[in-house]
């Protein structure tokens, strides 16, 4: 065996070791489902006239829990259908990577809602905070998933920061009902972005592991 072949073998081993540590479940259905739940939450908040801090917090934390539970169930269904263990090492790594930033988002939400009373100016920061933290969670998980997830995480971070900048520099009374803007931001960020990315994945992702 010459040194080039040996180097090639080492490269193949490295690539395979990296690949086995990746989470491989189909993400298109999970992303689309999360987006639809996000849009439904935004519609409920906007048309339901939820304009209290408590209502806003309760609605969106419920939406988050429902989305997480639905994603969990869908991933489990995919694993069962493929005859693979659900709580596999890659799944565990992804969950562990998501956990710190999602916990921070939950605590930040509870703190802002608890301290904000019914002040929409204060609650209005929550979509930006949640988007940045969710983006960080996705970026962390992206180390154990396909590369696109890291970029998707960056999208949320940038959108969250962009929304912060909008609130700082361009916040004007557009005649919207109270907190409606925050519901719309949540709908666009968590609903629209997921649906758009889910559609993209539907056309680009390998279909082998889909339910």
């Amino acid at each position: 065996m010459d040194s080039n072949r040996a180097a090639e073998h080492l490269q193949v081993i490295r690539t395979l070791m990296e690949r086995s540590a990746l989470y491989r479940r189909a993400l298109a259905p999970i992303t689309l489902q999360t987006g639809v739940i996000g849009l439904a939450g935004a519609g409920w908040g906007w048309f339901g006239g939820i304009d209290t801090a408590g209502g806003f917090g309760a609605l969106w934390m419920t939406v988050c829990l429902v989305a997480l539970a639905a994603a969990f169930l869908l991933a489990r269904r995919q694993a069962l259908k493929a005859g693979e263990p659900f709580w596999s090492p890659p799944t565990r790594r992804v969950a562990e990577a998501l956990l710190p930033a999602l916990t921070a988002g939950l605590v930040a939400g509870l703190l802002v809602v608890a301290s904000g009373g019914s002040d929409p100016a204060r609650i209005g920061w929550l979509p930006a905070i949640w988007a940045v933290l969710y983006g960080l969670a996705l970026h962390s998980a992206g180390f154990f998933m396909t590369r696109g997830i890291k970029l998707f995480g960056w999208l949320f971070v940038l959108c969250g920061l962009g929304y912060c900048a909008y609130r700082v520099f361009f916040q004007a009374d557009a005649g919207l009902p109270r907190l409606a803007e925050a519901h719309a931001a949540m709908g666009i960020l968590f609903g629209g972005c997921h649906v758009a990315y889910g559609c993209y994945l539907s056309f680009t992702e390998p279909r082998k592991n889909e339910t």
Partner: protein
Amino acid sequence: MNPEPFLQLDRVIHERGRMAIMSLLAATPELSFTEMRDTLTMTDGNLTTHLRTLQEAGYVAVTKSYQDRKPLTTCALTTAGRKAFGNYIGLLEKIVEQARNH
């Protein structure tokens, strides 16, 4: 160049398919049969044959169980397998290193 490292390469591992299986298993505590088959795009028969060879060499442990009443086959490296794979990689690195020094 000293041919010794090449002669020491483990013939069981030094086959493309089995090296790929060992590489996958080295990076994770265990993997299901279907995950390996899909990742390596091998046929069931091909994977089974390679696994049997690795199992006979004592490098891979195969566990059969049930998940939601469906059979689930998982594979993991044994301690001997992990050690043999480490030695194999060490020898490959030695071959590359020797070429660099000449």
